[in-house]
């Protein structure tokens, strides 16, 4: 049973799940996840490898649809709309729910084209509008100063940390409501990690951010709420163990398993 620690209430805004289950083919990966995600706050998902936290994150913009033979049960809503309803176009969902991946993955195009990609998809054609969007997004991603003089440079020519911020700028360009970050800092150097974390804190007042991380300190530093996932036995589905305000969980975990994990006893 999930233990809740001052967990957000269902406000009818943002993400909310009820008894959410997920399968990869025959493998039951996640079971009984019930949680509301706080609007315009940072929520972190933590847990050992294989605990389903990434899977759950990828369910939130239906990236898992791209894998053959997956299916879900239960309810997952965004602004009270069932995102798995047959009428929902996952493509449109993803425009509202942006995602950052573990490995920075800029397109092998210019920086400008990378950022303009999303707006162009949405049909923005005016050069001046695009210029504005590109500049604004790069500014918000704290990358503008570094690249403003070389927007024509290939995105792949940037350093790893810059690439990740470029990816963030690329997502910001379409003004998503929610930003999903799947271990965004595990593939970049420590200085860049700092920059990305700062950026998250800066962005939080305007958008909901959900971050999957292996790094307990990072979760503690940046997130307002924290969710601990665990797969107890191999072969059994993982689930949400404890969810609530980050500080409370760190200070005084209710569940023994949470405590074991955050004190580094396993995982």
């Amino acid at each position, binding site marked *: 049973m999930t233990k809740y620690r001052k967990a957000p209430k269902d406000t009818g805004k943002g993400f909310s799940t009820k008894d959410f289950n997920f399968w*990869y083919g025959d493998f039951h990966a996640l079971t009984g996840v019930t949680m509301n995600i706080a609007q315009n706050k940072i929520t972190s998902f933590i847990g050992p490898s294989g605990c389903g936290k*990434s899977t759950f994150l*990828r369910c939130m913009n239906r*990236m898992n649809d*791209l*894998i053959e033979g997956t299916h879900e049960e239960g309810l997952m809503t965004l602004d009270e709309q069932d995102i798995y309803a047959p009428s929902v176009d996952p493509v449109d969902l993803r425009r509202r729910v942006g995602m950052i991946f573990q490995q920075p993955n800029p397109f092998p195009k210019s920086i400008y084209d990378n950022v303009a990609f999303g707006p162009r998809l949405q049909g923005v054609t005016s050069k001046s509008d695009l210029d504005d969007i590109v500049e604004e997004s790069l500014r918000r991603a704290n990358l503008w100063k570094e690249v403003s003089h070389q927007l024509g440079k290939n995105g792949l020519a940037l350093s790893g940390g810059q690439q990740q911020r470029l990816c963030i700028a690329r997502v910001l360009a379409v003004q998503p409501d929610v930003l999903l970050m799947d271990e965004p800092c595990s593939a970049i150097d420590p200085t860049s990690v700092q920059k990305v974390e700062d950026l998250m804190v800066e962005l939080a007042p305007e958008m909901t951010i959900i971050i999957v991380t292996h790094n307990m300190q990072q979760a503690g530093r940046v997130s307002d709420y924290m969710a601990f996932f665990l797969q107890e036995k191999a072969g059994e589905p993982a689930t949400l163990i404890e969810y609530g305000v980050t500080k409370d969980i760190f200070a005084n975990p209710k569940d023994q398993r949470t405590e074991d994990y955050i004190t580094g006893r396993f995982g």
Partner: protein
Amino acid sequence: MHCRSDAVDTANRHTERGMKAFAQKGFCFCTALFCCLLAASATLFTTASLSGCAPRGAARQITVAGSTTVLPIAEIASEEIQEEEGIHALVSGLGSSAGIEAVMNGTADIATSSRDLTADEEASGLLQKTVIAHDGIAVIVNPDNPVSQLSLDQLRGIFAGQITKWSELGGPDETILVVNRDEASGTREAFKTIVMQGTPFDKRAAILPGTGQVRDVVSRTKNAIGYISLGFVDSEFSKEKVKALDIDGVTPSEESIQDKTYPIARDLFFFTRGAPTGDAAAFVNFVLSDEMDATIREAGYLPLFPFEKEAEEVGLL
């Protein structure tokens, strides 16, 4: 997507781990062996089969080169003479000219040719000529074509590209589709000499490098016209028929070729450097023998009359 990359990663780790343990010696050997076997087996098989069928070895060897027209005859003769007299004749078809050149410069013993010597070649005085068969060239059209006879002039007009419609020849108002042979062909050479008489061929005509191709195309294309050796007009291999045209009012047939009334006919030759001797002479005589008559007919040509054969045979020393 995620999963795919994971699977690959896992595979990679496995591969790397496996690299450390070379447990594949036997397998390596197996593959290496296979490669060597390719060459070795080919050689072995050859040795085995050759020693089986040619116990007397390859000491008695002659080289026969030249016309592709005569190639089938020469090949069969080569097989049979190998069996009967142990003479190993290496036969190749490179075209009459190449064969004649080969005999002149001594790389071949016998040149097979579907044309007579040119003035230059004649002038060298090196070569001895032996007629080995007659060949009539039939002009063929599709059986559906109403035209059934042409004059030599009309034929020339068609192949020169001056007559382009069947309507000009009493047929339907359709374009004549001319099928010519390649320049290596002895049949073309003969056709050129006898029919074209100096008028150039129309270069727009399709050029096909084989008798069968010409026959096949004409038999299946309504407005096509081509020429092939008379012997191939009726083929036991093909259901499709072609129609041989009368030329200048003469129907092509064995009789009309033998009595020389059919205009488009020629002889097939062997050329040797001087009078043939030894194994080369044996080969020439073998081709002229009655044994080969059936083969020559099968190849689409007409064997010589007995009196002609007597004149051509070489006295063996």
